[in-house]
């Protein structure tokens, strides 16, 4: 599904990713952990096509296509979804019209019929319920004045509506209390199936108590320096990141 090969990327002329390789197969859940500044969020932004985040070498194949040659919306149409660490506030555009525009665009490109308003509303309300967001949030401006936790749940709701093939969750756990964390984890676990994959970018092991990953990778200095199963996350929790950095150095 996703094959990243020796990816080098820079942000504002600064090299951040320095030869990252990763393969994600359908149905797999990969956790990417690492210290601050290791390039975790950069990976998500490069994959999503954020302006200013440029590849200097390497390749990324997604669903059989050269991902980095596609524009941002085309990546979304193919089934890529990035849950933001800091979701953007858009006053004046309601959450509802934003969701409908997204769902219509993605369904159209996937050759599906457009949802009529009634079915769309039902799905949106159901998704709100699943992420424990009051329906009144649908009428508010996108993320406008939402708390940190509400923004994260709003991201999750969008993911449920868009049904991506690969979801990259960028520090979705940061700033969440334990109840909100469980809501997010339940949302992800419900969506897990044989075809859908996840990349969980996280600083802490805590999220992985609720979402069990198939693989854990440690990102340091812009590369994956160690990979393992979920026990690696526990080891990191126990010993911190320093030993890895030492080992790599």
């Amino acid at each position, binding site marked *: 599904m996703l094959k990243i090969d020796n990816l080098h990327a820079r942000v504002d002329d600064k090299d951040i990713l320095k030869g990252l390789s990763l393969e994600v197969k359908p149905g797999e859940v990969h956790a990417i952990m690492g210290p601050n500044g290791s390039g975790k969020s950069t990976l998500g932004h490069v994959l*999503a*096509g*954020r*302006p200013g985040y440029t590849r200097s070498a390497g390749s990324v194949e997604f669903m059989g296509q050269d991902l980095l040659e596609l*524009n*941002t*919306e085309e*990546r*979304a*149409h193919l089934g890529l*979804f*990035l849950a*933001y660490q800091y*979701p*953007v506030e*858009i*006053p*004046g*555009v309601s959450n509802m*019209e*934003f969701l*409908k*525009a*997204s769902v*219509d*665009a*993605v369904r159209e*490109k996937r050759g599906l019929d457009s949802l009529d308003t009634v079915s769309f509303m039902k799905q949106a309300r159901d998704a709100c319920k699943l992420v424990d967001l009051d329906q009144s949030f649908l009428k508010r*401006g*996108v993320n406008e004045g939402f708390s940190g936790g509400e923004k994260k749940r709003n991201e999750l709701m*969008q993911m449920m509506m*868009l049904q991506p093939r690969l979801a990259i969750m960028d520090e979705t756990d940061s700033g969440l209390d334990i109840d909100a964390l469980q809501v997010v984890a339940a949302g992800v676990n419900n969506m897990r199936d044989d075809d859908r994959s996840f990349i969980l970018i996280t600083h802490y092991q805590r999220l992985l108590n609720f979402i069990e990953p198939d693989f854990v990778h440690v990102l340091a200095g812009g590369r994956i320096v160690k990979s393992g199963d979920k026990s690696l996350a526990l080891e990191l929790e126990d010993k911190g990141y320093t030993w890895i950095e030492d080992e790599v150095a």
Partner: protein
Amino acid sequence: MPDLMNGMLDAASANAPHWLQERQSVGRKVWVEADLPTRKTEAWKYTSLHALNRSFDSAEPSAASKAELGFEYPHFGGCKLVFVDGYLRADLSRMDIPAGVQLVRFADADEAQTELIQRNLGSVVDSSRHLFANLNDAALNDGVFLQIDAETDVTEPLHLIWLTTTQPTAFTVNQRLLVLSGASSRASLIEHFDCAGNGNAFTNGITELLLEDGATLHHHRLHLEEAGAMHIGGVHARLAKDSTLQSFHLALGSELKRIDVVINHAGPGAHCGLNGVYLLRNEEHVDYHTCIEHASPHCTTDEVFRGIIGDSATAVFNGRIHIHPDAQKTRAQLSNRNLLTSAQAEVNTKPELEIYADDVQCAHGATVAQLDPQMMHYLQTRGVSREEAETMLSYGFINEVIDSIALKPLRDYLRPLLAKRFSRDPKLMRHIL
């Protein structure tokens, strides 16, 4: 002054009721002796009056049918007066005037109404500062008088439509409205300007709003004239003790549009909410000059104007708040934000705060920006195309101001009309309506 408007002035003086004749001659004297403002005149620095350098006919009553006028008349409930080229068209109007409301042409005013008009007309507008008010006086042979009686709560909106046609030669229309909101009355008024066809009328208008103690007026002024239409007009309001004016303004760009909004807080405890939106494209021009005179203590002003300027259009926003020495405990804020959607678009925005009292809270701000690239990207990561994201964000930029309109039928009328300004492709607008 060049004699470009003489046709209109001669026609006006031939048809005016005798009690308007003195006002006419005073106005005409000032007008003919004045020079047309140039870009060197501070108040006209960014607005060229070049478009007025042609000869104008005076407007004739139009017999065009509703279909010929090609204008769809929205109905917001309540009475509706339709003027075509300045002349009342009873056949297009709904004259069911609610109880407690007087709404007449000056020409039809009875003795008591004439007395009220004579006493109040020109009492708010300061014609020494507004040259075109003198032209309006000079050409004044009719106008509209609206009075809401004291203690009257008018639930249905009062809708006045001034429609201009397109004629073989450019022509002038003189518009005048005098509104008296009686003590503790409540009403909603829509002043609605539009044009049929490409437009070549020059409308020169003055509206005076007098709010007596405790009156509430929801005032909406729509400038929907596009293309070749020209309009220089002003709204001049005086707010007595504890009165509230909510005034909403909308201007679509056209060849020349200059709107002055002057609010005088004349009694303690008055409040004004002033919101506006202007949308320009092609080579259109809109100039809003707002001036809030805080002459009395304990008054408040909340002013928000937003503009979207595209193509090679030019916009001007000048927002002045003047706090007089006696206006202690004033709270006033002004925000003007502009979105430029092309590299050639231009806006000149200038907030002016003059404060002569020491116990006041004032804030003002003006910004000029392009669409936020982070918002654009966020929408695109959800699959929304660049073009649709631009449309949604532009519309979102003004949506909050549109939301502030209390009158739902008016909001519903404006939304699709505004959406069309952002994109001619209905597919790009389908999610914002």
